[in-house]
């Protein structure tokens, strides 16, 4: 019969890409999987909420040390083949060897339980530490660059082995924008003047800029930070947010 070759439980790759957009994990034990990343599976696999599973196997809570992200992840447990994907984006598997890598939380799809997940200091990013494999998505193939490099926050996928970035504001750009504002030109806030500045040695991972997927953890992160505000400041922020919603 003509047509695409049909996969079976045996012919699916064991820990490799099926095609650039689909990855097959050979499961024997436990993996952490982002909610919604699972496309299909063969075998005897159970999916459990991370918080619930942690009460059965206490090492899970220690490895998944990011309360903000607990609700967005599940533990896949059992024997079989687990096929994952993300909006048709390119998928890549990375092997960490006693290393650390920071990645955009919404692009991380799965990682094995030998790796520890921690929240990055940069909002919206998480850090993987240890030895093990993880699978991440990117819009187009990943581009690896070396510092010194300045990255647009929306196009930044992650970084490995280099210090956390600093925020760089392009002074010339802002001066030009201000002059432009005086001339009556509107709509000059592109965010182009804000970049993440990487220095030192390491690797920066880039992708083509995308329309960011809503990351539910960002809301929780910001809610957590509003505790730093005084009551007056909180009220002022509330009014700004109301105005923004009403303008839509």
């Amino acid at each position, binding site marked *: 019969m003509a047509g695409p070759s049909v996969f079976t439980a045996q012919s699916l790759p064991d820990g490799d890409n099926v095609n650039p957009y689909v990855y097959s994990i050979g499961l024997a034990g436990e993996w952490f999987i982002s909610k919604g990343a699972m496309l299909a599976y063969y075998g005897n696999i159970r999916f459990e909420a991370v918080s619930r599973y942690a009460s059965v196997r206490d090492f899970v809570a220690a490895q998944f040390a990011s309360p903000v992200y607990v609700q967005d992840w599940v533990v896949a447990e059992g024997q079989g083949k687990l096929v994952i994907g993300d909006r048709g984006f390119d998928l890549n598997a990375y092997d960490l060897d006693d290393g650390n890598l920071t990645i955009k939380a919404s692009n991380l799809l799965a990682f094995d339980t030998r790796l520890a997940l921690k929240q990055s200091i940069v909002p919206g990013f998480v850090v993987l530490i240890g030895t093990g494999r993880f699978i991440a998505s990117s*819009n*187009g*193939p990943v*581009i690896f*660059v070396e510092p*010194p*490099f*300045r*990255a*647009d926050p929306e*196009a*930044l996928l992650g970084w490995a082995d280099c210090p956390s970035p600093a925020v760089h504001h*392009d002074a*010339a*750009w802002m001066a*030009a*924008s201000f002059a*432009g504002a005086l001339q009556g030109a509107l*709509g*000059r806030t*592109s*965010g*182009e*003047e804000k*970049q993440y500045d990487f220095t030192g040695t390491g690797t*920066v991972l*880039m*992708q*083509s*800029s*995308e*329309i960011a997927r809503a990351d539910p953890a960002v809301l929780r992160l910001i809610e957590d930070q509003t505790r730093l505000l005084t009551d007056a400041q909180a009220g002022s922020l509330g009014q700004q947010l109301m105005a923004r919603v009403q303008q839509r």
Partner: protein
Amino acid sequence: MLFEQVNNKVVRAHVTAQSPVLARRGAMLGYSGAVAFRPVRGQGGGVGGFVGAAMSGESNPMMASEGDGAVLYGYKGLYVTVIDLDGSYPLTCEADRLLAHDANLQTSVQFVGSGGVRAAVRGAMTGQGLFTTLVHGRGPVALLSHGGAFPLQVTGQWPVGVDPQAYVGHTGNLSLDLKAKVGFRDLTGRGSGEAFTLQVTGQGTVYVQASEQKF
């Protein structure tokens, strides 16, 4: 080589003092080296050019990248096609498909409605409206498309019919004409969905994208 295709969605521009780059604002992904960015207005020279561009809607917020270094450009995960213009014919496309180009190239706005109702209808079908953008000179241009864009050669012997929504741009000595074939089936909603085709005749190259979606 000024523009280097990194993958199908990202292009790396090598910026030097002699060849600055103009790019769509918001399309810079990252850079290394001593590069400065400056917001500029889209098209045209002088007051007339600016007013013309603003009136026609063929004006996009652009930025100039100047200095010495390498800049990565990409936009919303759209596909990028690099076209090297040899200076013989301008490239015709919509302004919002221009991701980046050598700043030594000139852009101008062309009124396509002067061809009467037919041309106006053609503009509406290709999503170009009554105006389109011409890129003149020698140098590389990076164009955005939804799904990859591929070139089709047009000769006197072999004209090409293109789905108006899949049309990206063209170079060469070409004339575009919208052909309508609306029959009874189309009116009753049982048509092929291809009632309109863009007939491209002459000598040149037309760029077509693998999608009917704009962005």
